[in-house]
């Protein structure tokens, strides 16, 4: 005979509290701000969906969103093929494996603002190693504080340097899990190197690559620290990505309502793209 009681609730309480304080309450605070106007002193006025409408219609938001998509697109287009190529050329056996793995992991171990500061100094035209070399040895006019193109090249290069390793390590994990028999069978079947890549390596890497792309998408779409440290969004607004713009609105102008509405839209876009991508990539595996 089982006696019914409500003790089980105590066991889920810790995780419930964690999720509440970690995600739900902060999120609902933002929702609260996004539909009201405040002038301080905890006095709020109901605004409805005005802020959302304002953000969605604003050119400033469109521009930042465009820059954000461009940035994410560029780094994905560079990092994914590059990461796969590096993973393919890494040794699968022998003493060089740990050396390569550690070298690959190094950039990811550096704190984000340090990466920003490093690249900032690295590219300074007068004292930075790269900046000085380009300007004074190669004779190329390169200054990311003046030239938007130089600023873009710098932040994209910085991100590639910082995060390609993630794609490399995940792809490599996929590659080493392929049994030797597959390569031997392909050899006997007369498959070309391209066919081996296309029909063996790429399919076996698909799952980890999906995760890698998803992580890189979310991370780059939410990127803040490095461009903030390096360019602060400039020159002009040329590298003002979504999160930088958001902070400017929220903390610079102290427009809490529009900033809250923008955060929610931002969040919805990230969620939507991630969901679409993941669903498309895994729909074959279901049946």
């Amino acid at each position, binding site marked *: 005979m089982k006696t019914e009681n409500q003790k089980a609730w105590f066991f889920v309480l810790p995780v419930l509290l964690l999720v509440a304080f970690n995600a739900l309450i902060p999120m609902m605070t933002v929702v609260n701000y996004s539909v009201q106007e405040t002038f301080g002193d905890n006095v709020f006025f109901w605004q409805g969906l005005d802020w959302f409408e304002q953000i969605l219609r604003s050119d400033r938001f469109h521009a930042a969103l465009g820059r954000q998509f461009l940035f994410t697109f560029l780094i994905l287009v560079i990092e994914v093929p590059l990461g796969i190529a590096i993973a393919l050329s890494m040794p699968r056996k022998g003493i060089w494996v740990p050396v390569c793995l550690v070298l690959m992991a190094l950039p990811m171990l550096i704190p984000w603002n340090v990466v920003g500061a490093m690249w900032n100094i690295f590219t300074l035209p007068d004292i930075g190693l790269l900046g000085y070399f380009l300007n004074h040895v190669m004779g190329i006019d390169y200054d990311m504080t003046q030239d938007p193109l130089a600023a873009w090249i710098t932040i994209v290069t910085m991100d590639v340097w910082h995060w390609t390793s993630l794609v490399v390590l995940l792809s490599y994990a996929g590659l080493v899990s392929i*049994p030797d*028999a597959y390569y*031997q069978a392909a*050899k*006997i*079947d007369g*498959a070309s190197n391209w066919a081996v890549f296309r*029909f063996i390596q790429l399919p*076996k890497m698909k799952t980890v690559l999906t995760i890698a792309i998803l992580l890189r998408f979310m991370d780059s779409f939410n990127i803040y620290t490095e461009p903030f440290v390096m360019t602060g969004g400039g020159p002009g607004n040329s590298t003002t990505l979504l999160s930088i713009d958001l902070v400017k609105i929220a903390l610079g102008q102290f427009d809490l309502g529009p900033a809250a509405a923008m955060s929610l839209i931002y969040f919805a876009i990230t969620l939507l793209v991630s969901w679409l991508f993941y669903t498309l990539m895994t729909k074959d595996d279901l049946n």
Partner: protein
Amino acid sequence: MAKITLSKLRHSYYPNPKSADDYALKEIDLDWTDGGAYALLGPSGCGKSTLLNIISGLLVPSEGRILFDGQDVTELPPDKRNIAQVFQFPVIYDTMTVYDNLAFPLRNRGRDEATVRERVTAIAEMLELSDLLDRKAAHLSPDNKQKISMGRGLVRQDVNVVMFDEPLTVIDPHLKWKLRSKLKELHQRVRATMIYVTHDQTEALTFADQVVVMQEGEVVQIGTPVELFDRPAHTFVGHFIGSPGMNILPAEVSDGVAHFAGQAIPLEGPITAVAGTRTEIGIRPEFVSLGQSGLPATVTKVSDVGRHTVVECEVAGSRVNAIVNGPGPNRGAMVFLDFRRDQTRLYADGWIASTAGESAT
């Protein structure tokens, strides 16, 4: 299809092998005739996969040559040797359909689509894969996947040899039997030279016309399944083939007579010059009977395996198995063992040392 000759083949995984123990394959000289069905049988680690990889070209031997129809292929890579190999675990191309999987080896060699279609449909029909041709290969059952692997091996008509590296390891027991007979049937239909590597004697004996038994990198005997069973050339073969294997009993030889447990044991025929120091008597359990006279023994274990009963006895510290029909004696019973004379052989240092005498039929 081709005749395969292995000449003075040796292989070591060490760069500078010093003693004979450093060799995974000790000197091997073999001829495999065109269109034959061969099995390479031996326990794990005996060098059979090494030998297979040398024939397929995945491995270059340290010494010796491999000839296909008299032509030296020792240095050629696998794709230049025109061979096919089926691996232990099914290798399939996940993203392709079953049809594309089977067509892959042909398309890589630039065959036109009409030929591809004809060959693929023929092979699919032989392997009973016709209904699955349009399906993605990724979600099939292991036995169907292994059938695809086999199909890719058989789809090219001009291959010199098709090799199977323990292909039934991952298959469920009830499907093993089916696939095994399928393979035998396939061999009879396509008449390609086939080499089947396995550590399972049933698989080897059912598939092959000729079985090559290997132990520790050496070929110990080549023969038909019947020969291997009837007259093992080495105690290893006797012990490895058969269930249970041959009884190997320590013997002393004096004046041309073998003695075991203090009794003279009549052999099949005269003993050849005994050079070895270790002499043993070999007799299969099938030819040991329980009677009223003979070697006194104690029954230690009786197992009913369905068709017959295996009686395990102890004689002077040695274990002797006997196979009897019907119910066996009780455990602990005292019995007398009788060895059928024409099946009682002498081995010296492992190798057969008695000749079939007049008593043999």
